[in-house]
């Protein structure tokens, strides 16, 4: 499988165009703002609780990182389609797909290379937010366990977001359509858990289980649950499989 050269090319394209820089800057700006407000709010609350004899039981992981991570997932829901939208749509629009798909590389390898390139960009972006726990660590004792699982959860969830985006991008030659389609799919799988409140109990469990963000909750608590890992991995694989089929279908249509 010749993934490496295409992976390199995708990374080069991300960073020679302003796309990667702008997305990372915007994400870090929003994420930084959330961190700042959550952390300063926590600082105020913990000050009050320190003066209150009845207070206590506050912990920085629950007070800052959990809300921060759940905010991340909302930002990512909006930003990830922008990272993935060009992967196939742009190749199709400019016609370069005609050359790419006639090189001695299987469609699956092309797909995987593009998925991994987007994932690498995402991982880099997420890695830059490690600065926030580092800042907390400077001021307060910190448990690294929940941080580690929190980041593992973010990476797993990001992988599903990217796989959905890759699939959406393989459907069209218009980047905006690709971004909107992946946004729609992600949003549907995000809010699907909400309707669980009104559904009958059997269906409610299914709906809740389908929710993309629900599965991220336990990671932020420091719990590494196999069922959540499996959910994300499966979701990613199904989306990539659909993308592969869509590539093949496009070939037949010519």
């Amino acid at each position, binding site marked *: 499988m010749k993934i490496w050269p295409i992976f390199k090319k995708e990374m080069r394209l991300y960073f020679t165009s302003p796309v990667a820089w702008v997305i990372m800057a915007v994400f870090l700006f929003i994420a930084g703002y959330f961190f700042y407000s959550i952390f300063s709010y926590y600082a105020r609350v913990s000050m009050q609780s320190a003066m209150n004899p009845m207070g206590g039981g506050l912990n920085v992981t629950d007070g800052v990182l959990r809300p921060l991570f759940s905010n991340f997932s909302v930002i990512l829901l909006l930003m990830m389609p922008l990272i993935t939208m060009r992967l196939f749509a742009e190749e199709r629009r400019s016609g370069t*797909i*005609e050359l790419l798909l*006639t090189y001695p590389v299987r469609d699956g390898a092309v797909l995987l290379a593009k998925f991994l390139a987007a994932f690498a960009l995402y991982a880099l972006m997420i890695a830059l937010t490690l600065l926030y726990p580092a800042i907390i660590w400077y001021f307060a004792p910190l448990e690294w366990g929940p941080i580690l699982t929190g980041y593992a959860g973010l990476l797993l969830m990001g992988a599903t977001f990217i796989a959905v985006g890759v699939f959406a991008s393989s459907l069209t030659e218009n980047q905006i359509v690709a971004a909107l389609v992946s946004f729609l799919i992600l949003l549907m799988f995000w809010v699907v858990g909400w309707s669980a409140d009104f559904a009958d109990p059997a269906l409610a469990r299914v709906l809740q289980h389908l929710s993309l963000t629900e599965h991220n909750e336990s990671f932020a608590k420091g719990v590494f649950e196999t069922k959540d890992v499996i959910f994300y991995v499966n979701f990613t694989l199904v989306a990539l499989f659909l993308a592969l089929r869509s590539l093949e279908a496009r070939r*037949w249509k010519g």
Partner: protein
Amino acid sequence: MIEVQNLTKHYGPVTAIRDVSFSVAPGEIVGFLGPNGAGKSTTMRILSCFMPASGGTAKVAGFDVFSESMEVRRRIGYLPESVPLYTELRVAAYLDFVAETKGVPRGERKKRVAEAMDRCRIADVQNRLIGKLSKGYRQRVGLAQAIVSDPAVLILDEPTIGLDPRQITEIRELIKGLAGEHTVILSTHILPEVSMVCSSVVIINKGVIVAQGPIDTLVEQFFPTARVEVEIAGPSPAAVREALRVIPGVVSVSDLPGFDGIGRYVVESSRGRDVRGEVFRLAAQQRWDLRELRRMGMTLEEVFLHVVAGEQSEPEAPTS
């Protein structure tokens, strides 16, 4: 090197090509001709493994384009009509990507990329962004991309379209230079180009092959006689026709529209026999005014117009 048999491709209800069969020998340069929309690009896309055919088989270098696609892809260089390139990459980096993807070993890559750039004369722009290059340079980058892995077969879809005359000559020379070691199939609708570059042609019209073979054979096949155009002033056309017809080797004489008292005729004789001398002596002897005596070159262009126009005057094919 290329074997195509009964290739058919439908796009929904539209039949792009129907029962296309031809073959190309190793080292040959074949011109693939046809009016716009005749099915040239479709055939080339199938040969390059971009899309599967609806029916029939195609083999490149002995491998089937559908069932042994990877083997075929390793042995071809393809240049699509639109010359799609990554505009945000620099020329050398782009060619390095192509070479690596096409499996050129790491140690040879630098050399191959340099060689391809030399041959296509783009070494001077190797550090420029492809998006900033002129059309001519882009075309050459596209060509370099096709030859960088030194493939046995080159599939070039309209390689000279949109170039200025000097660039066309350059590209033409380059393609000519590829003959022998590479098998080339190139599509175009510029006919003089074909006569200059290709040893044989395949002419396709409305998805069906209407003529194929070496250019000379085709010309002979469609125009078995040599023709001379004669313009003579003076006597009655009937007398001139009569006199011309008895020249040895002349097969037929026909009228072309003339002016007052000047008759224009087309004299057909068996191929390989030049009757101009006899026509001149006849006119001199009869004291006719010989105004013009011209051999009509029967070129590929006439063949092309003949087969393509001949098709068009017939009723529309029901499936297309």
